[in-house]
């Protein structure tokens, strides 16, 4: 079966195995010399592709237990974040860390150690897990936790499925009073202003900035910062207070066909300009969680908007002590080469410590670009600049980096590689990405 990442490129013909129970996963691992697990396929590149065997976890989607009093959820790896939220939010809970889409599975979020708009305050997905269970290379079911086999726990978070097939995870949820977020919006007319607004928004739990990558001259790096907190009950309009955890119904449009990116580009540019000029001073609004956290999920299949050749997403993090120099060079290259999509996302990240987990203290920039020879060259150049400034590339988004980028960007990579060789994971759990990056 032809499989690809969310960027639709590369696409590889893979043999797919679909176990339905943990026992079937164990049997599959024992019987298969080389495989990789795959959840919702939301990694952008080739992290969940293995032509020899790709093990789909989507039927391993059971809730094992949910304690609605203490906010502890134990669930199988194939359960999607959207289903987790549907289950827990009516009881007044919300996942402590969510990425920009609710489509990934729990296993996928473990593999990427996803971060959200609150990393500077709350860390990554793995920081809220009590336990991960996985099937190791020898077919045994292994339990790891911060206090029990912490090395395996830390290697699995961000380990892109290369330490074993995740079976389940137990997570601690956050108490919320409502299904809404109280959002303040600030516009800034240049990069310095934008960066300081992002820093200045830090009393708020969640913050994210959108940058206009085409702006040049004095407007270089202009953008809008959104800062939000879970809305308490009394922040809701009176009409909503009787059902504070109910989410407004959201129509989901589908994109059933491929679309050339040009149409999208101009439309989004116009929409951004409208937002930018309509926000003369900090504006505050109450927004439902779906719209605040997962805006793109409203357009199902939005990855088709780039056409059949697909697209790349470049995401890097540059260390705080780089002082914005690398960021400036990257934005400069993007705006002059004209390859990138008009909007880029910028967030603050706090420190991290796991060997292959992406976040380090600094700023992360994410940007789409259509796949193609010219853009691929630009992409690699962006990876070079990132590494030159002490940063790293996000493996969950990557499809084009090379081993040098990983070696330089992730000091823990050598130790990760050595551990895989010694416990038998190397050779057994491999993906197109792990081969390309020599992990």
């Amino acid at each position: 079966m032809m499989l690809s990442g969310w960027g639709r490129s590369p696409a590889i013909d893979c043999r797919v195995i679909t176990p339905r129970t943990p026992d079937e996963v164990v049997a599959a691992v024992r019987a298969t010399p080389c495989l990789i697990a795959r959840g919702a396929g939301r990694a952008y590149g080739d992290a969940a592709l293995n032509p020899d065997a790709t093990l789909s976890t989507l039927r391993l989607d059971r809730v094992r237990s949910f304690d609605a009093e203490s906010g502890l959820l134990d669930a199988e790896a194939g359960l999607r974040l959207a289903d987790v939220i549907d289950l827990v939010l009516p009881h007044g809970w919300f996942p402590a860390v969510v990425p920009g889409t609710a489509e990934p599975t729990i296993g996928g979020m473990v593999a990427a150690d996803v971060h959200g708009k609150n990393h500077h305050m709350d860390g990554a997905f793995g920081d809220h897990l009590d336990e991960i269970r996985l099937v190791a290379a020898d077919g045994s079911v292994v339990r790891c936790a911060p206090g029990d086999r912490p090395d395996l726990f830390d290697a699995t978070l961000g380990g892109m499925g290369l330490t074993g097939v995740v079976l389940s995870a137990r997570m601690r949820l956050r108490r919320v009073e409502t299904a809404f977020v109280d959002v303040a919006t600030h516009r800034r007319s240049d990069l310095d202003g934008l960066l300081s607004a992002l820093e200045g928004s830090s009393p708020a739990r969640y913050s994210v900035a959108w940058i206009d990558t085409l702006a040049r001259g004095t407007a270089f790096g202009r953008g809008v910062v959104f800062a939000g907190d879970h809305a308490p009950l009394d922040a809701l309009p009176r009409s909503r207070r009787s059902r504070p955890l109910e989410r407004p119904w959201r129509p989901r449009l589908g994109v059933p066909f491929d679309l050339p990116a040009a149409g999208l580009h101009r439309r989004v540019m116009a929409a951004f300009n409208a937002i930018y000029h309509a926000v003369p001073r900090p504006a505050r609004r109450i927004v439902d969680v779906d719209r605040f956290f997962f805006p793109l999920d409203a357009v199902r299949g939005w990855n088709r908007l780039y056409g059949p050749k697909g697209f790349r997403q470049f995401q890097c993090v540059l260390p705080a002590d780089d002082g914005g120099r690398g960021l400036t060079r990257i934005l400069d290259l993007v705006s002059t080469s004209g390859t990138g999509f008009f909007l880029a996302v910028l967030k603050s990240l706090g420190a991290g410590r796991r060997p292959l987990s992406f976040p380090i203290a600094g700023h992360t920039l994410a940007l789409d670009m259509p796949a193609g020879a010219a853009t691929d060259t630009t992409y690699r150049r962006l990876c070079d600049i990132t590494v030159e400034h002490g940063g790293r590339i996000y493996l969950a988004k990557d499809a084009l980096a090379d081993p040098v980028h990983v070696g330089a960007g992730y000091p823990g990579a050598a130790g990760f590689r050595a551990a895989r060789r010694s416990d038998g994971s190397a050779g057994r759990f491999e993906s197109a990405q792990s081969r390309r990056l020599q992990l």
Partner: protein
Amino acid sequence: MRRRFVLVLGGTSDIGRAVAHAFAARGWGVQLAGRDLGLVKREADDVAARHRVPVSALRFDVLDFDGAAGFALSVDPLPDVVVSVVGLMGADDPADVAAVRAVVDTNFTGPAIVLAAFAERFRARGSGTLVGVSSVAGDRGRAKTMTYGAAKAGFTAFLSALRQRLQGTGVAVLTVKPGFVRTRMTEGMDLPALLVAQPRTIADAILRAVERGRPVTVTPAIWRPLMAVVRAIPEPLFRRMRF
């Protein structure tokens, strides 16, 4: 209002799970029955955790014909609805005696016996719904579905007969005939993608059939005209066809 209960025979199968979740989402209590109690319990925990309804896990083997009456007597509370989702595609070779027996026993004899056992308790109570999940494959025997189709044909006829027998007793018998469904049973089979339904679709159709008391449901609906055509093909032509 008293909570209603549904018993799913074959509760660990893809359609069985989907039926459990569909009913539980509407507040029904669920009783899941299957051969491997550990697997059944895992599904039961999932349904209970998600929908916060009473869920029990029961051991049941559809091939244990002699045990069917005892099983029906042991289920407590007596459910309002019993759904038999048990099925086996099995090997294709009619000369393989063991395989033929397995397919016929699992798709026809076993479900018929256990549904008849529940029919007795329901008739004594004066209420209840028995749902047999058959298949459009039973509408006409063809080489590609061989013994499976034949067994399902028998099961469909049995359900029709039971429906007639129980008329007027307060007990309803519903036949549900799915087309191709994306499940473990059909994994690896080369099926036309546009015609394959998700287990969820079948489950929702079963729920609707129960709520409306519709005696025969074909799901998805496209299979009604498709099978009408298949049934209408004259035999001299049909025997030459290879689908």
